[in-house]
């Protein structure tokens, strides 16, 4: 009897009197403060709470990053909450918990729920995936339009589908600029870091082989800079920090493009900033949207992929958060509309297109 | 103002299960050589450790030069001009003589007037000078690891002198020395006394006391029995007071009855870690019923011979036969089984597992066989039973009986435990290396008696000792070793002590 009441007492944001929505967010080891993926999801919840002050949120971190442990962490606490937000592919396994707890709602990001028997979609799981290739596409465009050396590159972690999507999207963007604006920009690949995707196919690119190896990130960053690359799209998780550092240390005019969320703050380098823009997925907005649907009763489970048409993918163009030229910005805005209306469909790992041949590439 | 430079009043020191010093009061005069005598575990070392600041007494008072002091550390003792030469040398073996002597009071110079560094060169010179003054020549730049035991002892003495000690305590300084070295050391000690220093000497050897000491205190079971004037007290009275019974110095033995060959060593050659030949082409034979002793100055290869026979060191040439069986390349265990008992020189790092209890140590050579264990399972009761028997049989004294951690036992009693264990194996060949080192005279007598007893039972005994007296006393056959080579093998009756001494020094050979 003691757990629940006091939990509420301890919670600063909890309202008095009426019961609000009880939300928990369970994250991978990097926690809700990672300044990136998890935090963006968390912000969605916080924004929701701002408008619904009776709602509460509790952040729980799973420390090992192992799948089974992640699911166990959710199972440990599920009884005490109404909605559980689980950002990260690690949580695909929560479907079994969802089945056992039909009165709870789960918001899963970055993965589809693991099938339970034949069932792949669940009434109480809203699983969202984003079209990373679109974000990558904008990054590729920005890089190709802004490069002076005509050499750009994308750095990834491991060739899982989401990463390959970013890579193919980026390369699509570069090719698009080359074709449409008559440039000759090369997407540089270091031979030793080609990725092998989940089907075993060689997808090229620059894969560090890990999402948490800053040192290797830095090695790759340095190698790219040495080859004359002046804009790098960094879609490599923690490994990306190493690329950032390499770029900061390089004295030349090298820039990076952030990934997933607006990484402008990570780009501060003395009085300068190395972040050109960021190719992003608008996760917080979507999390908030789903939470709203829960309170107004319109919640509907299912597995969705979110595209630019719902303004779920894109790039950072707020004043002061990017360093794109006017010209680039307008070209990208143009393209954004084309992506939105489906004229341009950048290549992804499994959508059948390739960076050299995709709808919209004239 | 009393005429004592050191006064210890009503000193009591307790350790778990034992009162090491029980209300001991002593006065030591300036400029005398004061000896401490007592059985193993009587509390001599403890008492002197208190004086040198290693332990603090539970009760009692200490006066130095008439002033009451509480000696809280060796450093404090040094300030009071008290220095102790411990039996177990406290030296850093990687350091040079100078570095060891100056440790704690290193002379400093400044480089560029800014960076202080230890001025070794200057210190070397000073120590060379000091060592000459006291007749203790050493090469100050040599490393301790390269020195013989007696040289190491010189370093310890120099250490104390370098600190300008007035009161010098020696804890069993002669136990590890050869007769020549002992004479030399006693000379030094007398010289120091004549130079005005006060000397406290712990020793088990009455003749040494007789030779140099002025007065002598006798301790027994922690209590002070008496303080004697050495000049006026006959040796056997001292011994009697100390042991509490009459002591026989000459071992009585019937003439040896040699029977069949037990050990045959043929052309044995042994190299040390650096590949240097320490034993060169050594051959000898020991028969059942024979005590064969190897006499020699320390570090002439005798310990290596023993180690090699026991299997601790590898042979590089030659053969070892035990009861006709070639054991040259056998494992240690097999040798023990075939029939070797071995009392090693270094009891603390080889002879005992200091952190095990006494009963376990007593069973260290037999734990794996019936009745100590059967089918790989230990029988704890048998350990205890056996341990208790041994304690009684060999008079091993300790705080908590078979449960005593061996580390806490006095050195002499540790030695007794090893002897008990090895004799009890009843092996055809028994190797005794320095069996009486650090052991009181009562116990020495016992050990010698036991050795002879075993011989008479038909065992072959190999005795290695630095003490010529001991060898002359118990051996039937003597082999003298010098520089890794056996100079002479002859029956003990046919050799005089002097002759043996000459062979030992390499002055005479066949």
């Amino acid at each position: 009897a003691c757990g629940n009441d006091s939990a509420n007492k301890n919670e600063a944001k909890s309202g008095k009197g009426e019961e609000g929505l009880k939300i928990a967010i369970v994250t991978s080891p990097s926690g809700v403060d990672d300044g990136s993926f998890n935090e963006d999801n968390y912000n969605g919840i916080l924004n929701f709470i701002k408008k619904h002050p009776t709602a509460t949120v509790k952040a729980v971190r799973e420390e090992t990053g192992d799948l089974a442990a992640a699911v166990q962490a959710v199972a440990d606490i599920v009884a005490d909450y109404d909605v559980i937000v689980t950002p990260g592919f690690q949580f695909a396994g929560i479907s079994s918990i969802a089945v056992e707890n039909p009165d709870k709602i789960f918001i899963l990001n970055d993965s589809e729920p693991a099938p339970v028997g034949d069932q792949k979609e669940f009434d109480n799981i809203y699983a969202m995936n984003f079209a990373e290739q679109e974000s990558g596409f904008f990054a590729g465009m920005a890089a190709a339009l802004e490069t002076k050396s005509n050499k750009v590159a994308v750095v990834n972690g491991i060739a899982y589908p989401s990463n390959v999507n970013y890579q193919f999207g980026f390369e699509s963007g570069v090719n698009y600029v080359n074709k449409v604006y008559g440039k000759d920009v090369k997407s540089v690949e270091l031979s030793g870091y080609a990725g092998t995707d989940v089907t075993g196919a060689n997808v090229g690119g620059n894969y560090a082989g890990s999402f948490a190896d800053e040192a290797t990130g830095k090695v790759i960053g340095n190698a790219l800079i040495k080859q004359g690359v002046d804009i790098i799209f960094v879609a490599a998780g923690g490994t990306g920090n190493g690329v950032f550092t390499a770029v900061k240390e390089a004295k030349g005019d090298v820039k990076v493009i952030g990934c997933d969320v607006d990484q402008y703050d990570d780009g501060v380098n003395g009085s300068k900033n190395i972040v050109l823009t960021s190719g992003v997925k608008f996760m917080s907005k979507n999390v908030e949207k789903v939470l709203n649907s829960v309170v107004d009763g319109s919640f509907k489970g299912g597995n969705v992929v979110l595209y630019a048409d719902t303004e779920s993918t894109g790039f950072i163009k707020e004043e002061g958060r990017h360093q794109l030229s006017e010209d680039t910005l307008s070209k990208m805005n143009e393209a954004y509309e084309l992506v939105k209306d489906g004229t341009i469909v950048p290549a992804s790992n499994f959508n059948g297109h390739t960076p050299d041949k995709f709808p919209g590439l004239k | 103002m009393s005429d004592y430079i050191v006064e210890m009043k009503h000193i009591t020191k307790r350790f778990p299960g034992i009162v090491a010093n029980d209300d001991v009061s002593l006065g030591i005069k300036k400029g005398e050589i004061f000896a401490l005598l007592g059985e193993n575990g009587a509390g001599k070392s403890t008492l002197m450790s208190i004086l040198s600041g290693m332990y603090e007494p539970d009760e009692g008072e200490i006066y130095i030069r008439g002033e009451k002091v509480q000696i809280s550390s060796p450093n404090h003792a040094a300030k009071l001009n008290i220095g102790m030469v411990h039996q177990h040398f406290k030296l850093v073996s990687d350091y040079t003589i100078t570095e060891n002597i100056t440790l704690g009071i290193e002379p400093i110079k400044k480089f560029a007037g800014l960076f202080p560094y230890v001025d070794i060169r200057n210190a070397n010179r000073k120590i060379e000078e000091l060592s000459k003054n006291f007749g203790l020549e050493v090469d100050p730049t040599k490393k301790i690891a390269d020195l013989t035991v007696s040289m190491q002892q010189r370093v310890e003495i120099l250490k104390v002198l370098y600190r300008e000690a007035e009161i010098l305590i020696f804890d069993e300084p002669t136990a590890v020395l050869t007769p020549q070295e002992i004479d030399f050391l006693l000379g030094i000690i007398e010289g120091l006394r004549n130079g005005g220093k006060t000397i406290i000497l712990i020793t088990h050897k009455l003749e040494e006391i007789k030779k140099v000491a002025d007065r002598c205190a006798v301790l027994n079971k922690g209590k002070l029995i008496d303080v004697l004037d050495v000049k006026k007290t006959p040796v056997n009275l001292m011994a009697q007071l100390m042991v509490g019974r009459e002591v026989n110095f000459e071992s009585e033995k019937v003439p040896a009855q040699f029977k069949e060959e037990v050990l045959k060593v043929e052309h044995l050659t042994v190299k040390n870690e650096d590949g240097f030949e320490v034993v060169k082409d050594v051959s000898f034979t020991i028969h059942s019923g024979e005590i064969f002793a190897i006499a020699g100055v320390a570090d002439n290869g005798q310990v290596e011979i023993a180690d090699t026979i026991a299997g601790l060191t590898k042979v590089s040439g030659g053969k070892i036969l035990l009861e006709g069986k070639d054991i040259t390349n056998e494992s240690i265990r097999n040798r023990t089984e075939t029939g070797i008992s071995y009392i090693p020189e270094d009891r603390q790092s080889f002879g005992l597992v200091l952190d095990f209890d006494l009963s376990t140590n007593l069973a260290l050579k037999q734990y794996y066989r019936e009745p100590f264990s059967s089918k790989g399972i230990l029988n704890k009761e048998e350990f205890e039973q056996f341990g208790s028997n041994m304690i009684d049989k060999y008079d091993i004294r300790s705080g908590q009986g078979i449960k005593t951690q061996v580390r806490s036992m006095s050195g002499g009693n540790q030695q007794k435990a090893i002897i008990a264990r090895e004799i009890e194996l009843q092996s055809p060949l028994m190797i005794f290396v320095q069996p009486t080192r650090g052991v009181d005279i009562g116990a020495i007598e016992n050990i010698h008696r036991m050795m002879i007893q075993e011989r008479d039972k038909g065992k072959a005994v190999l005795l290695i000792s630095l003490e010529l007296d001991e060898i002359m006393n118990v051996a039937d056959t003597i082999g003298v070793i010098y520089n890794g080579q056996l100079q002479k093998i002859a029956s003990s009756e046919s050799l005089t002590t002097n002759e043996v001494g000459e062979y030992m020094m390499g002055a005479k050979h066949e």
Partner: protein
Amino acid sequence: MSKDKKEKFFSYSLIRPLSNEKWQPISIPLVSILISFIAAAVVILLIGKNPIQAFYNLFQGAGILPKPSYAGYKSMVTDFLSLLNAMTPLVFASLAVAVAFKAGLFNIGVSGQMLVSGFLATIIVGYSGLDAVIAKPLVLLVGMVAGGLIGGLVGWLKYKFNINEVVTTIMLNYIAQYVISFFIQMFYIDPVSRQSQYISEAARLTLVNVEIANLKMDIPLGFILAIITAILVKFVMDKTVVGFEMKAVGSNRNAAKYAGINVGRNTVLAMVMSGGLAGLAGVTYYLGHFSSIQPKVLSSLGFDSIAVSLLGNSHPIGVIFSSFLVSIIDQGSTYMSSQAGIRQEISSVIIGLILLVSACGEYLKFKVRRLKEKEVDRKERES
């Protein structure tokens, strides 16, 4: 005379319960745990939370105390079984450390040995489709053999080439981590989970989601084995010739050699045993508690176990209890964090504190002995 009073206070509150030497192996860790919980309570108070509440939640989360509400198919029983499931590999790992320790060796490489055995068991048995009756024992066997071989290698390198086992095990940790990561990424990756593919249920040492009385529980088969193993290890160490020899080698190599004990063989043997136990930790971890392997991650369990084994006095039975305690804190932390709003790191801090205090056990013992002696002295003086 306040010093005297203080001493008296200590003597009554501390010495009495601690002075019985027979009970010290138990009483000292208990006091250590108490002290560290008090210290942790202070930390929790400092961040403005209620420590009693937090500890209560901790135990609730671990299945020791009931929670107010349970999710579908869950109850205290299922939580408790999860606790045992998580604890199983820790027991094995700590035993591995303890055995090596007794022989005077430090096995810092438990993590690496776990990984290798877990991996080999996974690819040999986990993906084989063998029947449960054959698969499960085979998993154990593979784990034990693989771990034992690595341990043996460490022991052999030490004996043969005098290579410090601390270095060897650290190096092998890295090598295992990278090499196995390579194989997983190349051949056994599951693209969705980004870990190695799941093993077959038949090979898994924990029966998962067993439905009993409307509850879905995980039954850790390895747990029983862990307990039996601990008892066995105790028996071997205390009562057998093998254990005697290993302890002798650990205590004084020279004397052991002199006594005819084969030092080399015992060094290798101790490491084989230690490695074998680490292997069991590996299979109960990767093929029991979990069912797949994260590439490039060394389980921290291998390091924690060093401390856990200390907390248990390197005593096999003590290890069971210390593993139990540490697992409670580990397992309960998620729930505590969710309920009391205290970050989970606090639970690591608590574990750290417990271990810290218990590392001082020898000192406590020493202090107690000193105080006891003083008391005896005082009494003597008084009378």
